[in-house]
């Protein structure tokens, strides 16, 4: 394996892990409500902007990160409470358009509060690269990957081994039956926005030291995360993770071997091809059900 290839792989997987976290957020909210939340990328932006702002204002580093993520969760719950909930009887398309409106509002608010400039966040544990097979791996990449792996296992446990997680799955599979089992499906919707915001927020503070942060950083990240979710089959958590890594690695390879000008197009080309060949996504598969 050449050093170049390894280098592209490292950066692809790092970027892909962030897409996976964003894609998971899309899938979780979609499962609870069939809504595609186009403000998902803004969750990433809010956490990064808030954390950088607090660090610049002199707040302790870890506290600033935690506050950035916490603020994102508050924004996520507020988005559900004040924008989605009042319109819950509207069609899904209307709700999706509301999330697009919310994303524009959040970008505007971030510009007002944090300015239009690009801001950088210091890496969690230095910038001394680790050299593996001739390729440089930044410690921040290890943070991204490590935290993502922990989150994936924690989510798996939440959905498979806790009643709250199973209640969210039940609501996804059959919202009417979920209500008949005593599950408060409105609360599940609120919880799904909180969870999606949490994932977006964590992705935001993880990626900020690698990619600068600015008010519109969430736009592309949101779209790539959306591609990741669609690629793996919308609503399939494992699919979102695989989709995220696939998009990230393909991008890095294209940028490295072809031209970085085509980098952003890759995700959208992949998604076109996959949707034509496998409309249900890579993990869409056939569902097993006897009636």
């Amino acid at each position, binding site marked *: 394996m050449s050093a170049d290839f390894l280098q592209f792989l490292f950066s692809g997987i790092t970027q892909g892990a962030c897409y996976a976290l964003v894609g998971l957020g899309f899938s979780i909210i979609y499962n609870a409500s069939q809504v595609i939340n186009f403000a998902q990328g803004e969750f990433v932006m809010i956490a990064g902007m808030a954390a950088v702002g607090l660090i610049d204002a002199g707040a302790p580093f870890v506290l600033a990160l935690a506050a950035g993520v916490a603020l994102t969760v508050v924004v996520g719950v507020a988005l559900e409470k004040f924008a989605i909930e009042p319109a819950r009887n509207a069609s899904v398309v209307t709700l999706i358009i509301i999330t697009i409106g919310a994303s524009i509002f959040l970008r505007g608010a971030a510009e007002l509060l944090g300015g239009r400039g690009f801001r950088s966040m210091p890496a969690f544990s230095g910038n001394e690269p680790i050299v593996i097979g001739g390729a440089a791996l930044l410690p921040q990449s290890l943070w991204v990957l490590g935290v993502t792996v922990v989150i994936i296992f924690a989510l798996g446990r939440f959905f498979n081994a806790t*009643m709250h997680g*199973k*209640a969210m*799955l*039940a609501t996804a*599979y*059959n919202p*009417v*039956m*979920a*209500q*008949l*089992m*005593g*599950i*408060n*499906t409105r609360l599940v919707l609120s919880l799904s926005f909180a969870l999606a915001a949490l994932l977006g927020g964590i992705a935001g503070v993880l990626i900020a030291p690698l990619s600068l942060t600015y008010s519109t950083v969430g736009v592309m990240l949101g779209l790539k995360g959306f591609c990741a979710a669609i690629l793996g089959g919308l609503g399939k958590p494992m699919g979102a993770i695989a989709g995220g890594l696939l998009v990230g690695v393909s991008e890095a390879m294209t940028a490295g071997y072809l031209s970085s000008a085509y980098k952003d197009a890759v995700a959208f080309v992949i998604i076109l091809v996959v949707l034509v060949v496998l409309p249900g996504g890579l993990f869409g598969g056939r*569902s*097993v*059900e*006897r*009636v």
Partner: protein
Amino acid sequence: MSSPPISAREAAIAEPLLEVQGLEARYGPIRALADVSLAIADGGLVTLIGGNGAGKTTLLRVLSGLLPAAAGTIRLAGQDITALAASARVRLGLIQVPEGRQVLAPLSIEDNLLLGGYTRTRREQAEGLEQAYAMFPALEQRRRTAAGLLSGGQQQMLAIARALMAKPRLLLLDEPSMGLSPILVDEVFETIVRLAAAGTTVFVVEQNAFRALSIAEHAYVLEAGRIILEGAAGALKSDHRVREAYLGL
């Protein structure tokens, strides 16, 4: 003179577990239920029969809180529940086994059961699971199997077992015989009789009028959204209107 507390207690005992008065339901401009009133005594086994589109499923949707009542009141054990959310009604013990069973196909049998007991404590869930498996041993053998892979009859058993996990005071069953072979229908109805004998109040909504009237004590006939007949199930079975319209005799 001392007012007799005994008669007050008798009145409380005589009060039905479920009392529906003047219930109306609408789908937009279409009126699906009109002035429906019924009463189900505590411990009773009551049926409501009616043809396709009579409004049977709509009635159960309104009772469970999935569809708001346009008018009228629903009382459970004396408490007005007309405005309560569906999940709150489940907590009060009003449990429905919906039409078409609605098992959560990708989840395991055991997860389906546990979710049935979602409103119950961990301990009650464990007890309920034990009882469910004692009642339906076939489910225990396949407890890790995805519920969607069960046969129709087994899915109906799972749907009933799942409802029992919630410890129902009143069990609503929507067309439990639908799509099942005659032998399986026998099994399902035997189960319903056993549940009622064990003290659960049961309200069965059925298109299969003969079977439903054979097991119930009291019966209602719903037609075009209105209750047109009511009486002892045995008497209705020999009523000429019921025989002509629903029994094909």
